[in-house]
């Protein structure tokens, strides 16, 4: 049964790879095709055959500056979109973002605190990751302790946790040194991938892989959770357990992403909608599509952020500037893929 609709969809899956290669050429430092091919061959042979690594400027630009950043953009985009799509399913609300449970605010506070106390790059990332998870655990335990049931209490708990961490972040900003720490905090909160190195990728890969793999395997079950608690239960699902697993995995993805990129809005909200327009609402197809579109979208926006003007534009600003009008356009078209 050959369906041309599916073969076109399959093409989208090649998009991130094509963009990855294309993005190597993008930047202030000129890299002609011949140089990229040449340096790629050298890097390849040094990686697999142990020949001495290239020490040219081109090598440094391509493989120590651009490539880790490109990989980070792909990972962060895929992670935020997968988390966003999953949260939208289990909260039965297409307007939910990955930061619904206060993960963004928590991670932001963790990073700001680390900037204030130590100003160590690795510690900033670890604190962001840890406080993102902490925010989720607070929101969940608050939701579980409350008398209400279902998803609404989780949403409310998320709002509470968010506002506490936002207030604490403001406190940190208030006491921070205005010439040194405050700009660092503000810049971190706006989101950027400019300083990403391979080492950073190394430690987010594991939580991202675990979170994404479990969500990928459970993706069909998200359909059933989106029917509501009673129907999911009637279809034999342990609703509380399944919802918890999905929340934890989506939070792992979000925290890992935020820890290296800062709080980047809109991607996790808009990408699932674009994906829904392409493959429909069934999570069996929607989740992998969200990963691919999210990775591609983030990489494109990051390419923009490092090329349109001489100084970088923080990613969080650009995703909003690109994402919000796109969302408005989709609403106008009335093709949101939900009712």
């Amino acid at each position, binding site marked *: 049964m050959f369906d041309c609709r599916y073969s076109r969809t399959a093409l989208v899956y090649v998009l991130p790879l094509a963009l990855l290669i294309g993005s190597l050429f993008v930047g202030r430092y000129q890299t002609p095709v011949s140089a990229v091919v040449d340096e790629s061959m050298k890097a390849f042979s040094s990686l697999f055959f142990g020949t001495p690594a290239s020490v040219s400027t081109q090598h440094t630009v391509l493989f120590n500056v651009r490539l880790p950043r490109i990989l980070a953009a792909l990972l962060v985009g895929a992670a935020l979109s997968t988390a966003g799509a999953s949260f939208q399913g289990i909260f039965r609300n297409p307007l939910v973002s990955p930061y619904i449970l206060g993960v963004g605010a928590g991670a932001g506070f963790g990073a700001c605190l680390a900037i204030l106390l130590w100003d160590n790059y690795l510690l900033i990332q670890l604190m962001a990751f840890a406080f993102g998870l902490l925010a989720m655990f607070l929101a969940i335990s608050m939701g579980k302790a409350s008398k209400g049931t279902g998803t609404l209490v989780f949403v409310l708990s998320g709002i509470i946790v968010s506002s506490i961490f936002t207030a604490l972040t403001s406190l940190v900003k208030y006491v921070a040194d205005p010439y040194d720490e405050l700009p660092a905090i503000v810049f971190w909160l706006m989101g950027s991938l400019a300083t990403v190195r391979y080492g950073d990728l190394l430690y987010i890969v594991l939580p991202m892989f675990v979170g994404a793999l479990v969500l990928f395997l459970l993706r*069909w079950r998200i359909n059933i959770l989106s029917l509501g608690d009673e129907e999911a239960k*009637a279809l034999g699902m342990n609703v509380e357990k399944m919802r918890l697993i999905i929340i934890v995995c989506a939070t792992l993805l979000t925290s890992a992403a935020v820890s290296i990129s800062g709080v980047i809005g809109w991607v996790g909200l808009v990408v699932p909608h674009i994906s829904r327009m392409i493959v429909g609402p069934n999570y069996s197809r929607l989740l992998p599509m969200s990963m691919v579109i999210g990775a591609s979208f983030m990489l494109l926006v990051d390419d923009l952020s490092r090329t349109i003007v001489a100084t970088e534009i923080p990613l969080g600003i650009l995703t909003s500037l690109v994402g919000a009008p796109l969302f408005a356009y989709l609403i106008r078209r009335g093709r949101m893929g939900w009712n």
Partner: protein
Amino acid sequence: MLEVNSLAFSYGNGPVFENVSFSLKKGEVMCILGPNGAGKSTLIKCIAGILKPAAGSVRILGRDTAFLGAKGIARHIGYVPQQNEVVFPFTVLDFVVMGRAPHLSMFASPRAEDMELARESLAVVGLSELAERPVASLSGGQGQMVLIARALVQKPSLLLLDEPTSHLDFGNQVLVLETVQRLASLGMSIVMNTHMPDHAFLVGSRAAALAGGRLVALGAVETVVTGKMMSSVYGVKVAVREIEDMKRKVCLPLRGK
């Protein structure tokens, strides 16, 4: 096949119902009647394992559902809610195949044979041609049929329907009732809440009346749906008459005193 023993349920402030007992054989249709708020839906949800009863037991094919787990119950009991609100516009086929969930392992997605079962059960309710339509675009009657199809895909031995006709026009009510009757004739046991006593005459082999938190009547439809019983259950004057040329009883409200 189904045995309900002294079932009780409470939301925490006094019992909704208590001491509810009845049993059902293969291929029987039981209609549960009663006024709004009597706990008919709650009773159905307790049998389906969605709500946890405060006391009593439900046994299906001899096994206590308290020990079957949600997945085990869903393999034996199909639950059809009053109406569903899908947030995302799944296609009818994607929606119906979700009924395979209790038969699939946690990480599995439906395979070709599950899709085939979904198509078969759509055919049973006569909606094969709507397979690729979004669920939300269906009419009320079609939506109800799709919910029934999803429950059938679970391959249950017992079907629970919670007021399946409550949002439907006259014609669709009849269509749903005919489907219920057809399923029963194929050997399905069915428990159905209904707000129309007449429906018990149309499809029921047995009936029960739930009022004031207990079963006030239980038995063959003719013995439960009587003028006197229905008048006391609903608090309005009701008459039951035999239509001679149709060889069927009807239940009608009487006007005035």
